């Protein structure tokens, strides 16, 4: 398995050890990072739409549940998972609310699954690129203007 794994819109991937999962240039999309620090298994879902009415395979329910199942399949423990959320910004004038809707949908799904959100950098009006370090569960966030931050 390659060390760096890029997760594109509408995809989810899992990793561990020295894998770094990334989502680059997220706008209204939301990147959900799940991490089980008992097994060191991490996962990232790059969500484009809040509900599965139009394109279920790009939407929060399919992607979040798919990610949790994939992590469980390699022995991650749902009760040990924590979540970090990034993205959900508003750029241009066309889709003001979709970012917020994505964040709300994901928050709701995680709460239903009993997975706590322990860090979050969502909303605003700029993009983000994020990298999840599967060895530590840390997430590095870069915005177009300004320093990188660690969550």
């Amino acid at each position, binding site marked *: 398995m390659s060390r760096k794994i890029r997760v594109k819109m509408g995809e989810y991937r899992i990793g561990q050890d020295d894998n770094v999962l990334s989502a680059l240039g997220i*706008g209204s999309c939301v990147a959900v990072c799940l991490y089980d620090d008992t097994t060191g298994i991490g996962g990232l879902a790059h969500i484009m739409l809040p509900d599965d009415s139009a*394109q279920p395979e790009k939407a929060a329910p399919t992607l979040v549940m798919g990610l949790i199942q994939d992590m469980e399949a390699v022995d991650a423990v749902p009760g040990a998972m924590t979540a970090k959320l990034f993205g959900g910004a508003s*750029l*241009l004038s066309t*889709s003001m609310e*979709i970012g917020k809707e994505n964040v709300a949908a994901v928050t709701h799904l995680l709460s239903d699954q009993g997975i706590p959100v322990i860090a979050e950098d969502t909303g605003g009006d700029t*993009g983000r690129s994020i990298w999840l370090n599967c060895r530590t569960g840390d997430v590095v966030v870069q915005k177009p203007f300004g320093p990188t931050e660690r969550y």
Partner: protein
Amino acid sequence: MIELTDEQRDILREISHVGAGNASEALSEMTGKTAEVAFPWLGVKELQEIPDMMGGAQNVFTVVSLDVRIEEFDGDGQGRSTLLLSMDRESAKVLAEEMTGESMDGEELNDMEKSALKEAGNILAGNCMAAITEYVDLNMVEETPEIETDMLGAIMDNVLLDVATEHEELLVFKTKFSMHEKVDAYFIFFFEDGAHHMVLDRLAHE
């Protein structure tokens, strides 16, 4: 899946050639500088691949985006096309300078520079649409352009959002403009919401 016949592909190539040629001529006229245009690329792309073909999802670009409403003259058929003029920040600054004839301080674009770049988007769009309507009998109405400087992927999230509910992939035209080695701009457009059927069906009848 969008599949093109050889005939459709040939005509679309020709259209994109004429459109890109017209557009670069118009841009040259406005700035007094030669705008060179690369051989247009035409193909079918998955949505998630589009930011990378425009310069990389995480790179900061200035993007002018413009929607075009496509209507049948004699029916209620409607579709849409999105046009994007995408360039790195330095190119944006230089192109704005060429358009306004004034050199402004600061890395960020001011309102005058932004509206000059929107105008460049308008000109390119108008010329491309004119090229298409020479081949197909459709009414094309340009809407007001918007401009944003941010990570390309982040801008495209919002552009592609409207498309994502109906499409997995798009028919994409792409070309690159250069102006005296200081401006590099990608010009991209794609059809949505049934617009490619409206256009392709008409090409088949030619």
